[in-house]
């Protein structure tokens, strides 16, 4: 039987096993919306802004490993989604975006709601397509999912003109797809792996440095085995948190700009650095000329272009993290050489001295609510087992520092693009994928306002997310940089004219709470977590002078950290009123 392009598209989604799509209708997508109306297999979640659709699909993808699917209309529909697409691109998240387009005969005419979607998204997608003939539709959708989910994953856009969704053809979904110009490598080079293992076993001050690649590749288990087998210290990037269990004594915390003292010092002094699924981002390396000056570096990554991009590497290995680590485990188990116990002992003594600095200490007797205390309490009350999404700013760093994750895919944040507005919609995607889990969104009063309209989506689909708003009345991270690097000239970083978040939450049909005293923090969190079927917006009025520590200023080396929480001098609300 012949089907229309719109019906074919929906059938493709079903045959691809797609459970949810996140979208927003409009003229160019109306045939597709009609096809969605006439079926029940694929559930459509109607967001309130297309950016929210992309972030929700992204949260779904990050928490499940399955591709997120987005459907938007042409013109403003796709331009609104671009921030969410770029966010997914920077963090290598599998996503397929379908944008409606004006009919093929109008393309290029500046038609109503026409934009060059393929052109606009080109720099922030792994690949994109314009479908010009319904005969190409099913194979293009198949290719889109294939490209999005294999190799180094990423978003793929399919631009679908309205007339193509009305044309008819015979439907058959291809079982497999082969593309002569696209073959990602998975297996690492055996000779290189052997070389890496020899180097690892001979190390005196070894260090594992792993990133989001471990999570994307579902490689936590071989990583944990490998690190434990060797007894070496392990640090994770912001994107890699949860890949190695944070409660394991071999874990030395996050590294980088706001990483722990012990992680950064150990990086600096290491003699063999094993980097897996991490990309030596500038927020991690600091000054590259002073990066790991004593170390021989092994770098495993599925993307050859990541290797030796920022930092020279001694043993490059192109391959999937999982496949390469499994090979490493075999070789290490069979090897006669064992790690040098005396050297390792001395190394751990040194690391434990650094640990003794207690770099994450903060004032627990303060009169004002300390943001760190809120996160610590959240961690305790959720047994460290919640899914935590975040926005961007100080609260994001505090969540990363004070909510240790023992499992992958629990920590959902925009590390690469740093997109404010990500947290709430991402939490919707997570909650849909894990309806029985506790899902918290740690945010700030500036970030939450960037996608706050999604509170309405949460009401419609009954998504009882717990929003932890660390409200310091400042764009805290901006204010912190202004304090340090602009002689405390707080230019446009004070969040004036804030809404009453309690009333706002209530207006959307949710529960709102305002918490102003440290003594009320635990009770409020408990109460909110007990309300299993309600979205609760907790507005914590926090100490606005708090800064994120430790800190390596941009362009400094790992052993040049600021440790002491020197108090910020900022005009308080009262002085500004």
């Amino acid at each position: 039987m012949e089907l229309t392009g719109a019906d074919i598209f929906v059938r493709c989604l079903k045959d691809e096993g797609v459970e949810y799509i996140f979208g927003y209708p409009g003229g160019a997508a109306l045939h597709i919306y009609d096809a969605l109306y006439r079926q029940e297999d694929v559930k459509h979640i109607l967001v309130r802004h297309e950016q929210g659709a992309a972030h929700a699909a992204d949260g779904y993808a990050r928490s499940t490993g399955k591709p997120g699917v987005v459907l938007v209309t042409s013109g403003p529909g796709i331009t609104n989604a671009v921030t969410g697409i770029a966010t997914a691109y920077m963090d290598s998240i599998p996503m397929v975006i379908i944008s409606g387009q004006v009919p093929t005969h109008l393309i290029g005419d500046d038609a109503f709601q026409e934009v060059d979607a393929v052109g606009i998204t080109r720099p922030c997608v792994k690949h994109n397509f314009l479908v010009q003939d319904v005969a190409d539709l099913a194979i293009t959708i198949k290719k889109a999912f294939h490209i999005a989910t294999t190799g180094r994953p990423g978003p793929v856009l399919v631009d679908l003109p309205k007339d193509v969704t009305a044309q008819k053809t015979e439907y058959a979904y291809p079982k497999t797809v082969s593309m002569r110009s696209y073959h990602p490598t998975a297996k690492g080079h055996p000779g290189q792996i052997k070389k890496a293992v020899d180097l690892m076993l001979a190390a005196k001050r070894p260090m594992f440095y792993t990133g989001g690649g471990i999570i994307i590749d579902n490689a936590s288990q071989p990583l944990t085995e490998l690190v434990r087998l060797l007894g070496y210290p392990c640090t994770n990037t912001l994107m890699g948190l949860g890949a190695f269990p944070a409660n394991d004594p071999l874990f030395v915390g996050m590294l980088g700009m706001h990483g722990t003292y012990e992680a950064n010092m150990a990086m600096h002094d290491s003699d063999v650095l094993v980097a897996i699924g991490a990309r030596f981002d500038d927020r991690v390396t600091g000054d590259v000329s002073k990066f790991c000056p004593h170390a021989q570096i092994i770098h495993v990554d599925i993307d050859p272009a990541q290797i030796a991009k920022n930092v020279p590497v001694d043993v490059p290995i192109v391959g999937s993290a999982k496949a390469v680590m499994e090979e490493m485990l075999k070789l290490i188990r069979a090897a006669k050489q064992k790690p040098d116990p005396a050297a390792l002992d001395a190394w751990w003594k040194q690391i434990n001295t650094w640990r003794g600095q207690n770099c994450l200490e903060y004032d627990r007797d303060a009169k004002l609510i300390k943001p760190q205390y809120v996160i610590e309490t959240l961690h305790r009350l959720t047994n460290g087992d919640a899914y935590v999404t975040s926005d961007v700013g100080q609260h994001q760093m505090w969540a990363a520092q004070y909510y240790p994750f023992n499992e992958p895919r629990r920590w959902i944040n925009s590390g690469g693009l740093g997109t404010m507005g990500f947290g709430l919609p991402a939490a919707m995607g997570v909650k849909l994928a894990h309806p029985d889990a506790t899902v918290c969104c740690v945010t700030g009063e500036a970030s939450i306002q960037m996608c706050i309209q999604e509170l309405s989506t949460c009401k419609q689909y009954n998504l009882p997310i717990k929003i932890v708003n660390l409200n310091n009345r400042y764009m805290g991270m901006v204010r912190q940089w202004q304090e340090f690097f602009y002689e405390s000239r707080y230019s446009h970083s004070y969040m004036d004219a804030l809404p009453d978040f309690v009333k706002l939450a209530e207006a959307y049909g949710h529960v709102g709470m305002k918490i102003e005293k440290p003594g009320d923090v635990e009770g409020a969190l408990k109460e909110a977590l007990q309300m299993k079927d309600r979205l609760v917006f907790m507005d914590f009025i926090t100490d606005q002078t708090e800064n994120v520590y430790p800190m390596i200023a941009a362009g400094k080396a790992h052993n040049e950290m600021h440790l002491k929480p020197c108090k910020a001098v900022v005009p308080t609300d009262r002085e500004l009123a």
Partner: protein
Amino acid sequence: MLLENESGALSRVAGLFSARGYNIESLTVAPTEDETLSRLTLVTSGSEDVIEQITKQLNKLVDVYKLTDLTGGPYIEREMLLIKVNAGGTMRDEVKRLVDIFRGRIIDVTDKTYVIELTGTGSKLEAFIDAVRGAGIIEVVRSGVSGIARGDKGMQI
């Protein structure tokens, strides 16, 4: 580079250069004997690290089938020049002599001008342009460099 002959493939290559701040000195592209593939020769410059990054980033493009750095071995490069110069009065014979020396061809003639065709390496074309500058150049059209490796091996499917 062998590139899928798909719409948008060329803009992906060009876009990558501008997005990452690499420069394109010249670029030529046309279909091959297999019409689903285009052959593209791109000239760029940079340190070894930069060239390595460019190569890796290009290889990542889904439309790039195969890529080689021709400067890694012996290779031949050719570029074609079409140039219109003043050829009136005393310059007429002088320009003709230069064309012969450079083994070019005069392919269009008016009372006052010649159109000359010349093929060779970029530096040969530049030398010729310098040589005829005195006569007065009206228009210069260069094709950009095409390249191929020497020896038996070919870049094929």
